[in-house]
């Protein structure tokens, strides 16, 4: 059998096939190793950063413990450090931004996924919205200083004068503060929310929409009762991802938030965020202040990691729901 087939075409093919299989097997193995290393490398890198930041924070962790999180003073002169005003500032400015950005982002997403406009025009619009994400944050900061603050300041002073009894308006505006910062942040996270919400809306099966229309539903009914409910958790995930982005934003906030480490209910009061304080203070920090700043970085990292993890979980679950339909 073997001798008879030695020179047959079939054997030849098999021989070449073997060679190719061998080569490609080696390539496959190498490739899979490369991807393995690349993907686990990311994980190792993340852990390494966390460990490094945690290690640098150790002196502050030992000295202040968990009390650091609820301390309200940030006083480098007396080495008194507490993170509460900064955590508060970070969460409130991001939440305000989210509050402004989500309705707008979802509206954009609906507009882009329905056929109000010809497809060409829609792709231009989509491109423009996504372009917002490409503007450097220092430009947003400048825009905030020269355009947003001159609008929010008189508005804040008027509200403080006429409705100062409402805690939200309890201070006059001194320029930078929560409101201008949150407004600019809202625009910065808009592309994230709009793009992800649009992909969630696109997962609505056409059959369902057509079916509803066939049963006499208006476009309004289809959007409100078919598309949005199906995309709801995807939209929620988009919002949470936007929140994570907002919390880590640094430059624009350092320019607009007012950099005052206080807790105030007023929308117009200056405040500070973790990222902004870090950016401002690292250059000249020495000794325990460095450790305290590292502790803050660690807290910020945990906050954003947690929020991103939640968003990913939600987005994954949406995928699952849609596949079931």
């Amino acid at each position: 059998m073997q001798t008879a087939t030695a020179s047959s075409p079939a054997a030849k093919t098999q021989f070449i096939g073997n060679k190719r299989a061998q080569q490609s097997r080696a390539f496959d193995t190498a490739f899979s190793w490369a991807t393995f290393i690349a993907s686990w490398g990311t994980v190792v890198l993340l852990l390494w950063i966390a460990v490094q930041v945690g290690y640098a924070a150790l002196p502050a962790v030992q000295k202040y413990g968990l009390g650091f999180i609820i301390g309200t003073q940030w006083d480098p002169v007396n080495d008194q450090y507490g993170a509460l005003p900064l955590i508060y500032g970070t969460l409130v400015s991001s939440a305000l931004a989210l509050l402004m950005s989500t309705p707008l982002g979802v509206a954009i997403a609906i507009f882009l996924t329905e056929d109000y406009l010809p497809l060409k025009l829609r792709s231009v619009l989509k491109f423009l919205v996504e372009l917002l994400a490409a503007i450097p944050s220092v430009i947003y900061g400048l825009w905030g200083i020269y355009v947003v603050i001159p609008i929010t300041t008189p508005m804040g002073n008027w509200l403080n004068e006429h409705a100062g009894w409402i805690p939200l308006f309890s201070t006059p505006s001194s320029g930078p503060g929560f409101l201008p910062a949150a407004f600019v942040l809202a625009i910065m996270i808009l592309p994230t929310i709009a793009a992800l919400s649009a992909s969630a809306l696109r997962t609505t099966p056409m059959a369902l929409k057509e079916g509803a229309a066939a049963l006499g539903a208006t476009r309004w009914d289809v959007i409100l009762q078919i598309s949005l409910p199906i995309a709801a958790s995807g939209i929620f995930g988009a919002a949470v991802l936007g929140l994570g982005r907002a919390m880590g934003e640094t430059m624009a906030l350092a320019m607009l938030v007012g950099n005052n480490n206080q807790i105030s209910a007023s929308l117009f009061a200056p405040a500070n965020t973790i990222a902004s304080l870090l950016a401002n203070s690292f250059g000249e920090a020495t000794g325990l202040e460095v450790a305290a700043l590292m502790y803050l970085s660690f807290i910020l990292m945990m906050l954003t990691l947690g929020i991103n993890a939640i968003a990913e979980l939600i987005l994954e679950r949406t995928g699952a729901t849609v596949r079931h339909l």
Partner: protein
Amino acid sequence: MKKLFALAIISAFSLCSAGADTITLNSSGATFPAPIYGRWFAEYNKLHPDVRINYQSVGSGQGIKSFTDGLTDFGASDAAMADDEIAKVKDGGVVLLPMTAGSIVLSYNLPGITASVQLPRDVYPAIFLGEIKRWNDPKIVAANPGLTLPDLPITVAYRADGSGTTYNFTNHLAAISPEFKTKVGSGKSVKWPVGVGGKGNEGVASQIKGTPGTIGYVEYGYAQQIKLPMATLQNQAGKFVAPTPDSGSTALSLVALPDNLRAFVTDPAGDGSYPIVTFTWWLCHTQYDAKTKPGVADAIKALAGWCLTDGQKLAPELGYLPLPANVVAKVQAAVGQIK
């Protein structure tokens, strides 16, 4: 990591300029004198093409760190160097050289007021403590008989980033107001009881320009350059003095410099002295290793010698204070100690 990065940058710089007999001096530190240092080093390089000086304005604290770690040939700091910081420097001592000086001014935004507002000694610390809240406060009105001060809330603007300017300004406030000393204290960044923080001189200036009623502290040169109004302050002798190069130099000339040349002029005496002035220092080694760093000691001595004489003439146009002759003589003697 930071160290490695800095080393990489510095060595990249030195490689670029490693000509046959070229000497490259690497330095980093304070941002406040960076404009005049940049000008000095460029002018000096024109006169002596074989000497190249790299200066990175990374801040006083980072400048001290890099100098201590041996990454730079000399450092620069607005707060000189504390004794415990000097103790950390390996191989021998440190020579502190005051090279230039500057004033810190209080700038404000008061629509309709063109004359310089006069602020007494008990008033401006109280403004920065948040105790005087309005521009038409009786104490401010009393000090400015010719002016109609508006009924505006005072917004305080301060430096949000750690800075030598804040260090020197709070040192002054703590020296003239015991209350400020206990409530806030002095440092490169402090816990301001009121106000809005801006990043850098430009951040404070944009806050002042943007919001009527704002008062903030910036460096004289910067305020002059962008034409911010500057307050006239009451000095230790009780006289109201406007910030000018002359009034600043007068204050400096009356300072008794100790042997280590580290003197903070927190509250200068003299009738004509502007009250908030500060030296800014170079940090040099007493001894440079002739084997590993050939020619560095001589290059630094020659450079410092030029900066103290011809270089001082460039100070006024850049908004800095030329060092008084008695100070220059003392610094020159200190330069002679470098080996």
